[in-house]
């Protein structure tokens, strides 16, 4: 995490934070997608959501981010507005901005401004070339995905919600995600990720079984 230390001196998250679900249920439209999901996560732990296609992993992540209300059960989690990163299927990138402009916006949403060298550093760390002229709309699928990781680096928040974090990434990209995740866990962060692949950084799993 050498480069990011220029921005944040290895910020430690509170060791008391928890993220817990108790008998959680999720309704989409008229359908109950899952029911009775419970888990508990303490600082420094990572959880991998598993389940067949359509079993409600993405929906659960949106519930944790406060974007989707719970149909039943209770959720305890950090205040999403300060404590949560949510990386979903939609990447929130603007095709008409350059990489540097995108990073500057990320910085501003984190409440600060850095100089161009810092942005170039971060882009290099993410394996992206042409920081100050490459338009985001021209990036390849994996390059876009890498760019979204910048948010995790630039804005330290305790809870990361990652929906299929390995999508479109090559081997180096996967290693990058794993590195970031491990450093985050060491600093006392929490991660909940949905994936169909094995995630090296996750120590626990929750299996969502579709209600039939």
């Amino acid at each position, binding site marked *: 995490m050498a480069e990011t230390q220029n921005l944040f001196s290895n910020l430690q998250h509170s060791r008391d934070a928890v993220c817990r679900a108790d008998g959680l249920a999720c309704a*989409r*439209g*008229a*359908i109950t997608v899952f029911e009775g999901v419970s888990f508990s996560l303490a600082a420094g732990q990572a959880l991998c959501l598993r389940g067949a296609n359509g079993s409600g992993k993405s929906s659960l992540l949106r519930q944790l981010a406060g974007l989707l209300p719970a149909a039943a059960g209770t959720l305890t989690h950090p205040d999403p507005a300060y404590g949560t990163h949510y990386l979903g299927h939609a990447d929130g990138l603007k095709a008409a901005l350059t990489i540097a402009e995108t990073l500057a916006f990320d910085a501003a949403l984190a409440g600060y401004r850095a100089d161009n060298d810092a942005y170039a550093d971060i882009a290099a760390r993410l394996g992206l070339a042409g920081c100050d002229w490459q338009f985001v709309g021209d990036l390849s699928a994996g390059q876009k995905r890498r760019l979204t990781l910048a948010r995790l680096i630039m804005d330290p928040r305790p809870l990361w919600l990652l929906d299929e974090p390995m999508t479109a990434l090559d081997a180096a990209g996967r290693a990058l995600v794993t590195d970031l995740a491990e450093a985050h866990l060491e600093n006392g962060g929490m991660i909940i990720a949905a994936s169909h692949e094995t995630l090296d950084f996750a120590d626990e799993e929750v299996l969502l079984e*579709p*209600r*039939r």
Partner: protein
Amino acid sequence: MLKALENISAFYANPTRFMALARQVHRPLWALAIGVLAYGLYRVAYVPADYQQGDSVRIMFVHVPAAWMSLFGYSFIFIASVTALIFRHPLGHVAARAAAPVGAVFTLLALITGSLWGQPMWGTWWVWDARLTSVLVLFFIYLGYIALWQAIDEPTRAARAASILAIVGFINVPIVKFSVDWWNTLHQPASVSRLARPALHADFLYPLLIMGAGFLVLFLALTLTRMQMEVLRQRLRARAPKGEPPHV
């Protein structure tokens, strides 16, 4: 009194109790609507032809109650939406959604009968008179409200969006009315004037009031029936096991 109202409303917040009540009420309500309307039409048939307007004055007995219902309908939607959104009364959305097309049809009826009446009276189907124009705008507000309900497939999301529109739109109605009045009194040429309205003779007044009452009961009956349909549809949806169509 308020407390009692609250209790009643809480009691019927349960859709099952509402459905039980509705089953008891809906036949008498329809009977009443048909009865009052039939009696009203009978009275209208015996109203003497107007010395100025001839038989076309009979349009009034449809037009005026329809116009009243257009305003009543939107107020109804507003109150139902507030109940649903702020007091979280589950039947509010159902009532608002059920009433919207009914209100819109009454508004359209007022517009059409008004136009039909305008042709013999003013020699034209339409003038940009203040009252007419504000009814037209009201009709558009209805349309937007209905379109919003239909455009969003997910029921809870549609319900929230529609009630936001209903509430904001209700604030807009008096503003439109007031601005249109001003617009028109400033610039309406004297050549097009509404018919001079003498104080309404009792021969006209009573049939009109009866028709008004009939339209009101008809509105309530139609809305109640549509509410029942809506609740049934929601139930079928909720009961559908996975793999079965959630909408009927």
